[in-house]
């Protein structure tokens, strides 16, 4: 059983012995809870049409994502050592064509939620009721207007097989007065705000029953 200690080892194969980066990875706990406890996906089912989908929209700083994929067997841990070199499948932004287990290529902000709404609608159109679609965005990323097209659309089309996870580490230049959750709630999403380091709280929010689309705002506040 992989522990977060093993994850730290995998993480440092990319970043070197830089403790600060490891601690600062805002997405690490969320990714771990998703891949360890929530997502119905494994290296053997990466192409199965009924797999759950995880779309990393916030593609910047993907070390935690790669570490979790390696810990769960999607990636050979050895490829972590050469990351961002010319022949490596692993770049500073993930490319779905190159990274086993990556559902989308991302990097430019504000693309994952639209793709996620489309993925969820595509599954619905094919009567695939089992798979769920999870999209991870950042609070700074939410500045991009494309997110708000997707948030409104998912609410209006009642895309119930979609969960957006908004990592709020206070990085949006102009902030989100009143909180991020209300941006989703006003469009008809089920929205909860949890501690982004609390695994049980994340699990409960990510698996909560919801009629419409679900938003989980994961707050990260470093000391």
């Amino acid at each position, binding site marked *: 059983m992989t522990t977060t200690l093993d994850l730290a080892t995998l993480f440092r194969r990319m970043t070197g012995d830089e403790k600060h980066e490891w601690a600062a990875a805002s997405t690490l706990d969320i990714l771990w809870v998703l891949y360890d406890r929530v997502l119905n996906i494994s290296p053997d089912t990466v192409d199965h*049409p009924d797999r759950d989908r995880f779309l990393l929209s916030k593609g910047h700083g993907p070390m935690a994502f790669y570490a979790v994929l390696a810990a769960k067997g999607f990636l050979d841990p050895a490829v972590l050592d050469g990351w961002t070199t010319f022949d490596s499948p692993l770049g500073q932004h993930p*490319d*779905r*064509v190159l990274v086993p287990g990556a*559902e*989308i*290529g991302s990097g*430019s902000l*504000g*693309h994952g*939620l*639209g*793709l*996620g*709404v*489309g*993925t*969820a*609608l*595509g*599954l*619905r*159109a*094919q009567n*695939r009721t089992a798979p769920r679609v999870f999209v991870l965005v950042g609070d700074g990323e939410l500045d991009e*207007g*494309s997110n708000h*097209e*997707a948030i*409104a*659309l998912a609410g*209006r*089309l009642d895309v119930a097989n979609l969960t957006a996870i908004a990592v709020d580490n206070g990085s949006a230049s102009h902030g989100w007065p009143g909180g991020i959750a209300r941006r989703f709630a006003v469009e008809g999403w089920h929205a909860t705000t949890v501690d982004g380091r609390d695994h049980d709280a994340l699990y409960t929010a990510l698996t909560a029953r919801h009629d419409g689309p679900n938003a989980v705002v994961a707050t990260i506040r470093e000391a």
Partner: protein
Amino acid sequence: MRETFVDTVTTALDHDPRIAVVTADISRDAFTPARARHPHRVLNVGIREQAMVGVAGGLALTGLRPVVHSYTPFLVERPFEQIKLDLGHQDVGAVLVSIGASYDDPVWGRTHQAPGDVALLDTLPGWTVHVPGHPEEVAALLPGALAGEGRVYLRLSTRQNATAHPATGRFTLVREGSRGTVVAVGPTLDNVLAATEGQDVTVLYASTIRPFDHRGLRAAGHTDVVLVEPYLAGTSAHEVAIAFDDVAHRLRAIGVRRDREVRAYGTAEDHDVVHGLDVPGIARTVREFLR
């Protein structure tokens, strides 16, 4: 052409479970009967063009074949990064279908004109570009696009030629002459034929401009070429250069001018005159260039 497009896609929705339609209010009502039969595969996203293309990318990721449709600037220019990333970079396909062309309705002004659409798509790898000149060519080109998996752009217009030509993907020899070759793309053909009446030139017709038929141009037997395109002038100039990359050649390109924004309304025919795409304009260019 739009009616043929809607009819063809509506029929395809009934027979091919992969087909899905995504609109952003433009032509929403034209797909109402199809939406009634296939509510989960005929999606209107409201006036949200970034979501329109993003949703199409997501649909394609699940194995569907999205048909994305809007007015030219709102299909190609406004969500261009979504076209680049949500389709191309994700390595998925779609069929983009525009109406309005470069200036089908000049009364709407510059905001509703997109003569740069084909040039923009030319900055991305792997796009097939169809520029039909007749509704029957739409009917011939669209089923193949729907059945395929690649990225296809179908550029519809309210302007059309009197007769259709076979849509083979290759250039069609319409007229043979000895002084040079005139390539007419899509709805420009009738003006080209009228303009070159009595001039001793070869006329080729293209309803598919990407991939470019280098061999067909070469086979016409002339290295003096006039290119007549209904979008930005010279959009295919680099393709002509590829066709003749080992021989000296001459090229004159006619199309929507790049040097100024035409701040005028009126009719499409009025704008043809400004761009030299009218019959006298094309005749003058061909006469001067292919002496």
